[in-house]
């Protein structure tokens, strides 16, 4: 039966979750793969600041009460069905922290008209 072995010797990798409102879409048509999302900064107080396109998003670091496991499907497995994720998966990483961006993005105004 499909087992979820930890992917390789040693400790599991720790990843981070980014939670954003809305959809993520590529600027140009075509693959998302390889395209840039944005720059992630932290203030000196530890507040995450994400610059995506013409928006600034402020977020917060959240320690997850219930961590996530990231499952990666093995090659050649069947498609997940509504009944369940049948197939072969490996636990690749654990996620214990998320960066939650829930505040409305502030637009970056790039052109300010000059006062007359």
């Amino acid at each position, binding site marked *: 039966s499909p087992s979820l072995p930890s992917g390789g010797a040693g400790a599991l990798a720790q990843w981070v979750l980014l939670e954003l409102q809305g959809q993520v879409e590529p600027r140009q048509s075509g693959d*998302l*793969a390889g395209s840039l*999302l944005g720059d992630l900064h932290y203030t000196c107080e530890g507040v995450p600041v994400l610059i995506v396109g013409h928006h600034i998003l402020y977020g917060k670091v959240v320690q997850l009460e219930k961590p996530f496991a990231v499952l990666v499907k093995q090659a050649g497995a069947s498609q997940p069905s509504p009944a369940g994720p049948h197939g072969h998966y490996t636990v690749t990483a654990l996620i214990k922290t998320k960066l939650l961006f829930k505040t409305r993005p502030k637009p970056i105004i790039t052109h300010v008209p000059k006062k007359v």
Partner: protein
Amino acid sequence: AAMRSRAEVDATLQTAKLNPAELLPAVHCLSFGPQAGGGECCLLQLEPGLCAELEAGRSLVIRGEKDEHAVLCSKDKTYDMKIADTSNMLLFVPGCKTPEELNADQASYNIIHSQIAGFSKNYWELRRCRPKLKKLRKLLMEDPYEGPDSQKDQTSTFSKYTTEDLLSLIQASEEEILHQLQVIDACKIEGYWRILDFDYEMKLLNHVTQLIDSESWPLSKVPLCACLEELGSLEPREMIEHILLSYGRKYVDDAGEVFFEMHEDKICRAIAQMLLQNAVKFNLSEFEEVWQQSVPEGMTTRLDQLQGLALVDKSSRPETIFLLKVEDLPEDNQERFNSLFGIREKWTEGDITPYIQDLCAEKQTVGALLTKYARSSMLNGVKVYNSRRPIS
């Protein structure tokens, strides 16, 4: 896409009117990795304890055939899996550092190029559930073991199941499966798990009880060696030991000899089943008389030994008793209650409890189940439960 440079990052900060002095020096430039859009990754929300198990190197298993809802099993627990939708986008980023990690690490990071491994709008949620063990009995009952003399085994085309087979077919954790095999008195014969055919089981039990009687052994001190010696010519030694283990508690005395303390209740119960399975129902008082006469010398029969096995009908004149085995009833909660209310319209709590006890989830009481699936009323001063819905 070319990787962003420090100059480009600083230019963006300036356009955004952010003061670099108020920011930590390191920046993560996030881009989508090559596999990101492929849907190869998904998220599984972990219940308490599972994270520690994974970190300890133990694995989790998803079990279920195509027509079953998948469950997740740890070494000793079973969980239902359900998709939870969020309205947000969840991106998973390897190698992304938190502010604490950046501050703790004195090495000066400048730009960290992070590739987003994947993203999702949903994740799998887990909910602890009862292991789905009814199928275990069903599989083993396909071909009960009738003894070495049975012709059936040689010519049998039925599947026989090893531990590995059961692990892949039963939606339960390994520990739950192994425990249930013990509960149903299954035994391993030539590497396969088998349940004994009831008649063969009674034949073995009868050999033992007759020997106990003829040797006048106390029921609490039945010697294994003597049983094997006396009965070894009649039945395989493994079967003699198996029946002793099924109906007794094994222990070793100070001299190192193996004995069994026989379970009076379990023996009486088995003999009752043997009597009851031959007819639809019995006159209660007649049954009680025959039953007491049928059990070994020194044993006392009591109706409470038959909980979950037989039901007394106190409303009929004369009172009757009939076989009703809880393991023959549906496993699903609603289906179980439908089935029970189909057999009898109104139940007292005392009568119904043995037939719903096994449905209780961790920390759930029979009372809570009754509140959820039944409606109560008073009948002749006694509280009874009936179906919430009209029975067709």
